[in-house]
């Protein structure tokens, strides 16, 4: 069921988890409860997924301002976390834009001083929040003085007068959990000799290899059926450990697998059928001299026309 808390996948494999490179939209409750990695502090685990950066949306319920940063306490309904939002150069200026608005500039005349003042004001508006406003924060998770917090790389005020953004968020996050975060990601390195892949992939490769090696130009299904026998045999052997259940017999499984593989090969263009008849004859595209001659003739005919010359 739940993996032993001490059993972490080796850190070298963490990059294989797509969630590791994304800003995970976890609930703040989960961010606060994630366990820290023993291998590398600063990386946390949620359901065997290594996480170090997150994306939250919530109401500001606490605010502290210093010269260099804002510290906003963000509440998303499941938990409250401190977000450390560093001030950019424009915000640090004591001469903030909350004073007089810049004089309307002459259209066509670019005044850098006026534009800079406008930029400062815009930045102030997006970064300076009051309690009750909605904040979006993307950043890395850190533990500071035993308290978990988010060190923001991006943060901004969200204008959401109709709560549309919050409602959408509330509907999106459970889906993300179901599709990604709550699915365990197997980070075991493949120690088996056989190549990874479902029986279907293995079967497809088997037939492709056979056709290539024997330079087969055409075949009927029963010619290649035996190649797939070992795959079915393995499956049956694995299944025999379980109690007898009514299911397809070995023969039926073989025929079904063969049918699926031939369909895949047709879709990929490796083989094709000239005539749709009871007698299934498959032609291998690469080996088909007649097909090549036919294609060459078509090209020759088309090139004779004026517009293609």
């Amino acid at each position, binding site marked *: *069921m*739940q*993996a032993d*808390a001490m059993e972490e996948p080796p850190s070298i494999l963490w990059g294989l988890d797509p969630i590791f490179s994304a800003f995970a939209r976890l609930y*703040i*409750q*989960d961010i606060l*409860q*994630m*366990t820290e990695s023993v291998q590398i502090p600063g990386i946390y*685990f*949620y*359901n*065997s997924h290594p996480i170090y950066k997150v994306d939250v949306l919530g*109401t500001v*319920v*606490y605010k502290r301002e210093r010269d260099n940063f804002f510290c906003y*306490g963000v*509440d*998303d*309904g*499941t*938990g*409250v*976390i*401190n977000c450390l939002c560093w001030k950019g150069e424009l915000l640090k200026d004591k001469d903030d834009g909350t004073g007089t608005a810049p004089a309307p500039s002459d259209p066509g005349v670019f005044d850098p001083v006026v534009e800079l003042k406008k930029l400062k004001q815009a930045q102030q508006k997006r970064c300076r929040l009051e*309690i*009750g406003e909605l904040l979006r924060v993307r950043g890395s998770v850190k533990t500071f003085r035993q308290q978990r917090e988010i060190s923001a790389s991006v943060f901004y005020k969200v204008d959401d*007068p*109709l*709560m*549309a953004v919050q*409602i959408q968020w*509330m*509907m999106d*996050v*459970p889906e993300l*959990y*179901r599709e990604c*975060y*709550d699915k*365990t990601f197997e980070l075991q390195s493949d120690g088996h000799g056989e190549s990874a892949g479902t029986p279907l992939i293995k079967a497809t490769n088997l037939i492709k290899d056979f056709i290539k090696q024997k330079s087969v130009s055409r075949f009927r299904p029963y010619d290649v059926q035996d190649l797939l026998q070992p795959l079915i045999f393995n499956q049956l052997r694995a299944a025999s450990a379980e109690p007898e259940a009514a299911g397809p017999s070995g023969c039926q499984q073989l025929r079904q697998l063969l049918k699926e593989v031939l369909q895949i090969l047709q879709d990929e263009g490796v083989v094709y059928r000239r005539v749709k008849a009871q007698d299934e004859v498959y032609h291998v595209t690469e080996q088909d001299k007649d097909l090549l001659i036919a294609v060459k003739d078509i090209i020759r005919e088309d090139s004779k026309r004026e517009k293609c010359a």
Partner: protein
Amino acid sequence: MLPPHAVFHFPWELNCLGEGKSVRTFGRLSCYEADTSRATLSCQHASKEHHVFVRTSFVEPFNPIIGAQYLVLGETETYEGFGVMICARVLSCVDGVNIALLQKAIEGQRSFFRERDSFGGGGQHR
């Protein structure tokens, strides 16, 4: 230092909560008494009118728009004979919000948490 998180509740669920719970709820502003710092939010549900009483001392001054939808975040206080009142920390006007969709989103979130908890702490890595 940080206040406790405020869980979304529907206006008709508030009377069951006790004292000191941090909640988030919504309703239409039907009445505001500035002198006593009291506001009333109303909501129709199952053909009954539900009222949420709000103490607005910490969010004043605010521009009261009677009839507009508001979102309130705060702690519950119980008063003898009166019922539950929310001491608001946040009171925002969200007029125009799609209440049905908000309700659906809250219920969706709740059912997700129930699902997860029923798997014995589901994905939680403790």
